[in-house]
């Protein structure tokens, strides 16, 4: 790998590790110092490696430089050093001497620090969108432009959002630790919501950047794996969410054509579905089915599992319908209501589904009219056409518009 490729590659994999360990050592109020030192480490790499060539072990080089920079910073800033030694009191790293403050970049401490940072960032006192942005920055090593691109926003907005979130972390004096047994379930719920949304951000993102979208999903999966690797957070709901991600991600290669247009589920070439990911999903879904709590992730993972079976059988759609019936009782969402109605058509009859669809009254939702168009197709093609037209008027993304136009074309032939 050339230096031009190597540094961005290392930045993506190592920045987050250095930042997490430094932040854990310094305390949450110094999150920006941690971020800066991690960033400067890569600047040094860029400068040094250009003249002296790539070192034999680039990662070890980065860790050494990060440690030295942290030490220098501590020595130069007496006030800061005092705060850090105070922070380290009552911790296993307790020390009164700046010289002794150890920056532990061992694998185990990297993992522990990242997991603890995940809980700190996904704190209920911070808004969900800030949590996602912060997680992308600190835990995934995304650049500000990438985050802006993912949110279809601009750099200034993202910067402001990150700053506000960090202020909040400081103001709330949030501890970087794994919550105790009593709190863990509640805190985990916030973490899982953020990871779920992060994954969806990638899966349903409107950004044109295909690599970025898949990266977002991969990062969400990696952070979920982090939870599963720790005994106290390897819980059924976490496995259910991971299974859901595996099943969805298995369809990545089949979802878009070469020009980046969305391929509808029923037209997908299932030989492109990633069978290894499907098997992985099935494994974790099985692991998730212990305990008594049935979360929405369990239900959604089961629905996603049935979608990995391409052949339409009565059994498949009856299962999907019943799972949606339960999902909607746990948590209503318009998309679940629409998917449930589609399953009703497949399991029972289109007529019954039309009657139910008319009751939903999701008048500003383009997918509502797409569904009605689908249901009326073959029963009343004129109504089907006018519903597709309404959907087209309401559709927001070009991918959605193209998909609806395709449906109209098919209706006419």
């Amino acid at each position, binding site marked *: 790998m050339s230096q031009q490729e190597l540094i961005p590659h290392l930045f993506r994999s190592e920045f987050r590790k250095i930042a997490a360990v430094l932040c854990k050592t310094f305390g949450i109020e110094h999150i920006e110092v941690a971020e800066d030192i991690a960033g400067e480490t890569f600047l040094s790499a860029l400068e040094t490696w250009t003249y002296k060539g790539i070192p034999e072990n680039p990662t070890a080089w980065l860790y050494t430089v990060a440690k030295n920079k942290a030490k220098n910073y501590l020595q130069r800033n007496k006030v800061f050093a005092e705060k850090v030694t105070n922070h380290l009191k009552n911790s296993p790293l307790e020390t009164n001497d700046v010289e002794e403050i150890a920056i532990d970049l061992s694998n185990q401490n990297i993992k522990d620090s990242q997991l603890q940072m995940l809980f700190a960032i996904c704190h209920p006192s911070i808004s969900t969108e800030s949590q996602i942005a912060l997680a992308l920055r600190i835990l995934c090593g995304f650049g500000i432009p990438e985050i802006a691109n993912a949110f279809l926003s601009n750099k200034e907005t993202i910067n402001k959002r990150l700053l506000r979130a960090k202020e909040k972390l400081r103001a709330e004096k949030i501890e970087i630790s794994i919550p105790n047994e009593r709190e863990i379930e509640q805190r985990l719920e916030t973490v899982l919501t953020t990871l779920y949304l992060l994954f969806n951000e990638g899966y349903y993102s409107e950004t044109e950047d295909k690599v970025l979208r898949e990266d977002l999903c991969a990062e969400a999966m990696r952070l979920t794996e982090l939870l599963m690797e720790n005994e106290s957070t390897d819980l059924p709901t976490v496995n259910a969410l991971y299974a859901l991600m595996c099943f969805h991600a298995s369809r990545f290669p089949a979802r878009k054509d070469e020009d980046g247009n969305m391929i509808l589920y029923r037209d997908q070439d299932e030989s492109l579905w990633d069978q290894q990911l499907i098997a992985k999903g099935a494994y974790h879904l099985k692991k998730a089915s212990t305990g008594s709590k049935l979360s929405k992730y369990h239900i959604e993972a089961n629905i996603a599992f049935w979608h990995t079976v391409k052949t339409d059988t009565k059994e498949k759609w009856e299962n999907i*319908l019943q799972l949606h*019936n339960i999902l909607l*009782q746990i948590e209503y969402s318009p998309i679940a209501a629409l998917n449930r109605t589609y399953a009703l058509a497949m399991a029972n009859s289109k007529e019954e589904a039309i009657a*139910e669809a008319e009751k*939903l009254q999701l008048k500003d939702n383009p997918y509502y009219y797409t569904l009605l168009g689908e249901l009326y197709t073959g029963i009343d093609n004129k109504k089907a056409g006018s519903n597709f037209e309404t959907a087209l008027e309401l559709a927001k993304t070009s991918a959605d518009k193209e998909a609806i136009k395709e449906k109209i074309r098919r209706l006419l032939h």
Partner: protein
Amino acid sequence: MLIFRHQDGTKIASPEQIQIWMKQTMDWIGGIAAQNKFVEGNGLPFDDAKVVWSNKVVTNGPFGEVKETLGGFIVVKADSVEEAVEFAKGSPVLQGEGNSVEVRKFSRH
């Protein structure tokens, strides 16, 4: 609150028939939930049912006419009693002659 009154299904129907009722009930509740009008609900199995009387005497089973025993309930969000009645009309319980769905409102939320 929609309260179902009906006979103990396990006494009068085959397991296959009960499975059909179950599906119909799930589809009915799913339809209400799809309109974001479902709050909660539960079935009340007849086995192990007891009645405690005013003199603290405990007897087995629900009392009253067979068709009037409580079999379950669901709580829905409805803007009017008429809307709740419309939901109730869809209940599969009403297929059985003499069965009923009682519509009641909560005094406090």
